[in-house]
């Protein structure tokens, strides 16, 4: 279903401006969507478990700073170190959520402001340039000459996580937790563990998205990704994942991220004036969800 929304949107943009449907333009759009797709994919896991992760964008910003700061010392290991630290931070949030029983909304909202503050302080409130671009160069390559490596990686990540879910009992655990946490717990499923794992993966994805942003901007900055929070959550919902948990998939979020990206870059490029662009954006995301959500799976729409 989300694919239909994507195709319709693409068709509409092409009608508005026939030049939009060129291979170069599509490649650029797909490349643009990669960090958003990775952020959304990670957070989708948390949403599937019935929670929400509002810290992804701030964590992503923080990781760009960490990456830029560590690169001179750690060199090639920086990527792994940055993703690892982001994952660990995600895990800490997950632990705070399950151990202290604080709603995930609040934990991650708190996390959001804490990560922002830390990023601001350690970066001395400014961007950190990257001189040695070799560490991120691989992300700027193209697979087969057309598919941007960053998007390819995003697809790979989604595929890998989806496959692990599908082939192991994890998918059952995640869905059971999302649909009905108390039943899942009384069935002896590792609810707490699954939630912490979801937050960890979400953190790692934020880390990976950070690397992608750094490869694009040649710097790390304490507010670099902050504005990606709402688009990422919008991508999840536009993909048709139920915000109440249980129903949905990472693939849906990937498509959702493409839809949101097309809206963000497509509308202004085809010449919609900025005030109308916002009105259209609002109307289209609502319409897209109306199209993508499978209502037989989500009985009550909140």
């Amino acid at each position, binding site marked *: 279903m989300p694919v239909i929304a994507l195709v319709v949107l693409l068709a509409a943009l092409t009608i508005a401006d026939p030049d939009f449907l060129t291979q170069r*333009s599509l490649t650029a759009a797909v490349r643009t969507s990669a960090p958003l797709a990775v952020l959304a994919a990670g957070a989708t896991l948390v949403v599937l478990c019935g929670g929400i992760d509002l810290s992804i964008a701030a964590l992503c910003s923080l990781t760009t700073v960490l990456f830029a700061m560590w690169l001179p010392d750690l060199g090639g290991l920086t990527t792994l170190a940055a993703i690892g630290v982001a994952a660990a931070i995600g895990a800490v949030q997950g632990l705070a959520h399950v151990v202290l029983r604080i709603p995930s909304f609040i934990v991650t909202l708190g996390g959001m402001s804490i990560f922002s503050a830390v990023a601001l302080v350690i970066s001395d409130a400014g961007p950190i340039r990257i001189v040695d671009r070799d560490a991120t160069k691989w992300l700027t390559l193209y697979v087969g000459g057309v598919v941007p490596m960053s998007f390819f990686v995003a697809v790979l990540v989604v595929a890998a996580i989806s496959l692990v879910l599908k082939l192991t009992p994890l998918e059952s655990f995640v869905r059971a937790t999302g649909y009905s946490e108390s039943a899942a717990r009384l069935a002896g499923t590792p609810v707490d563990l699954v939630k912490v794992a979801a937050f960890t993966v979400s953190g790692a994805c934020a880390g990976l998205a950070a690397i992608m942003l750094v490869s694009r901007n040649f710097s790390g900055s304490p507010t670099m*990704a902050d504005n990606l929070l709402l688009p990422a959550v919008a991508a999840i919902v536009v993909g048709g994942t139920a915000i109440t948990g249980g129903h949905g998939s990472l693939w849906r979020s990937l498509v959702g991220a493409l839809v949101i990206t097309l809206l963000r*870059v497509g509308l202004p490029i085809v010449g919609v004036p*900025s005030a109308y662009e916002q009105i259209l954006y609002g109307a289209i995301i609502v319409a897209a969800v109306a199209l993508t959500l499978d209502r037989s799976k989500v009985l009550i729409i909140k």
Partner: protein
Amino acid sequence: GCSEEAGGSSSGGSEAGACAPEDVTLVGQVRNESNPYEAAWLDGGDAFAEQVGLTQDRLTYDGDSTRQQEQISQLLAGDTECLVMNILPNGDSDTPPIVEGAEEAGAYLVTQWNKPADLNVADYDQWLSHITYNGVESGKQIGDALAEAIGGSGGIVALQGILDTGAAKDRFAGLEESLAANPDVELLDDQTANFSRDEALAVTKTLLTKHGDDLKGIWAANDDMALGALAALEQAGRTDVAVVGIDAVPDALTAIEDGTMTATVSSDGPWQGGIGLAIGFCVATGELAVEDIADEDRAWFAEQFLITGDNVGDFTSPEVDAADFECDNVFSRSQGAIS
């Protein structure tokens, strides 16, 4: 296998000066159209475009760095043959990718306000010029004006802009210079209000109760915050506090005329909106060659004025002066290269 190209039509940069005037595409990009300064900027761009018989594509990115990058890469994925861009990067870190992108795609680029200090414009062919106002200077000028207004001694507070922007840092550095020159002026507190009128209102109210009558002056890193501070003063019934800002937005000028505000520093939005397009247009159509632009004109401070009650009348209705955009005149407002 992997390659570095996005495939398809690879463009290694257009032949400078090869464009017919009617083929040029003019793009102006600012944060949003919902504040007067940036709306005036885009209007200035429109005025220039009209002057050369073209239209300007107005882009806004809502103060969202990622969105700015996304728009630009999408723009550069289109036809870049005779593309001229006058860009307001959201922050220092947003400039390098824009520059790299333009360089690769062969679009003509002028940036304003934000640029990392170590990024050298002369290293690039398509990045024609970077224009900014001397923030340290502005911060110092209004700091001095404030010191004078409070009689050379007393407590002031500073309202900083978005902390991780160069503008906020430079302006605050200017204030510090001014404080060094006016030893009897004491900085009681500095807080950030993120360049926002609404936040400045709340922060100022709190600072007023915190420092009470010790507070004699408010130094704001832009006029919006100064206006928010003025509203807070009015609500607190305080008329004895001097307020200064930067940008010369119309409301601030009115406030200076009324005498409620002490000083601001001009930054000419309409001119900024036109000048970037003008430089790009001149190069694209061959009237100006990149090699001929002097190194000090590749990154320069534009002329600015301290506006106080004495001279405010000269600035209340900024007009676009077509002569400023003549190819011979485009660098006429330069106050020298950015050091």
